[in-house]
């Protein structure tokens, strides 16, 4: 079997690889380029965890062979914060990433890269997608934590940032803001009693009887 030389631009950097024709694009990305943010869930084209942004559209990288990416331009989740749109919101992140952070679109995070790249592709075409359009757009992406509610809100948040509208306040950071997305996707406020202060992971919490 003749190996193929391929050259493609991944996250802005030109990369060259020698691959067997049977190597899938997702494997080239994960194994040869060590970009393991692109996930493999189902291997059959059903789950969307392997979604990447290729030549202006979202595709499933488990459904094409690596040589088919020769000459193409690919963005994976690792490259999102280097895109021109990054930093348009309140952080240096891409607005879609910021949306997932602010609106708690991420639970275990397995589906997240695929969801974010599918979301990015939608927002290239629509700057104000309806909830239905967002849901249709991520219909090829399965979230095994079944957290679709906040994922939709995350993409809506990104649409606002990209179109220069005021995005909603994060319900996680500001639990009294009245925004409906919730930490657990269920009841607003999620039963939290700590006023929603973000946990300070660098702080030393007292042990023992809890009396500081």
């Amino acid at each position, binding site marked *: *079997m003749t190996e193929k030389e391929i050259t493609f631009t991944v996250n802005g950097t030109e990369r060259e690889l020698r691959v067997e*024709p*049977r190597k899938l694009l997702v494997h080239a990305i994960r194994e040869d380029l060590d970009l393991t943010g692109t996930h493999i869930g189902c291997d059959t084209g059903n789950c969307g965890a392997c*979604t990447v942004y290729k030549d202006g559209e979202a595709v499933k990288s*488990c459904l*094409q*062979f690596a040589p*088919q990416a020769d000459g193409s331009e690919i963005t994976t989740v690792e490259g999102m914060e280097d895109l021109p749109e990054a930093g348009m919101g309140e952080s240096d992140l891409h607005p879609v990433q910021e949306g997932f952070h602010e609106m708690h679109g991420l639970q275990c995070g397995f589906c997240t890269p695929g969801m974010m790249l599918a979301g990015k*592709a939608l927002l290239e075409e629509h700057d104000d997608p309806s909830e239905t359009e967002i849901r249709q757009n991520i*219909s090829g992406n399965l979230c095994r934590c079944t957290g679709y509610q906040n994922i939709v809100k995350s993409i809506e948040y990104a649409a606002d940032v990209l179109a220069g509208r005021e995005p909603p306040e994060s319900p996680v950071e500001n639990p009294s803001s009245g925004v409906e997305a919730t930490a657990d996707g269920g009841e607003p406020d999620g039963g939290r009693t700590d006023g929603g202060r973000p946990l300070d992971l660098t702080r030393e919490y007292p042990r023992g009887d809890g009396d500081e």
Partner: protein
Amino acid sequence: MKAAPFEHHEPSSVEEAVSLLESLDEPLVLAGGQSLVPMMRFRLAVPETVVDINAIDDLDYLRETDDHLELGALARHADVERSAAVAENYGSFADCAPLVADPQIRNRGTVAGSIAQSDPKGDWGSVLLAHDGEVVAHGPDGERTIPAEEFFLLPYDNSLDDAEIITALRVPASGDDEGSAYHKLKRKVGDYAMVGVAARVRLDGDEIADASLALTAVDITNVSVPDAADHLEGEVPSGDLFERAGELAADHSNPESDEHGSAEYKENMVRVLAQRALADAVRRARTDDPAGAVGSDQTAVGDD
């Protein structure tokens, strides 16, 4: 599982593709790969050579001429979904495109590849049949056209020769007095059809001059329903007329019971969807509003 080893060829013309198919060992055409890649990984397909047609720019088009709507072999599902010509005049194509798989798969998968795949659950086969379409194939002896009616033979089997590739799909241009629709029942968004029905009608004044109905996933191939067409032609559209056509379609269908539903349930759904598709088609023929209705019936089993 990995696909078995193969050689990857990327011809840049149809002639080159055909001569590769003719001269190489156990070749297969690769278009969008949305069916072929998984089949190769499960080793249901084990080609020694893959003739990847994605670099043949001549095949990448979707156009409406005076006579035809024509889809080049590289027209993707998403191209149909975004086409203004389709939205304006070809209701069943406009209904069908967004109901195939999911957005990422629609960006890559081709309509011609779906026809070549000849899966009885494939949606486009019914649309092509309902529109009296034809498959344009290129082989060592040049070009020939195969009527859709003669194309599908068995599940995953069709009348293409080994060294032939589909270069285009063609359907007669839709007149102002024509309308068509596609209705699909599936368990969830992005799924294959449990039942699908394509309908097309041409009106002459108040009467149906010409009609066709074709079915997805309820026989060993996509099938058209000649009895229903005969029943409709020369008649004035009415609920009763469509009901009888739906019954004829159900009689003609041959579904199997599986984990998604009993044969009886599916037959009943053929009856229901045929009536809805016909009603949409007639409405569109009258109002010239082809993409006005949604062709999906995403009611899951037991969803009532």
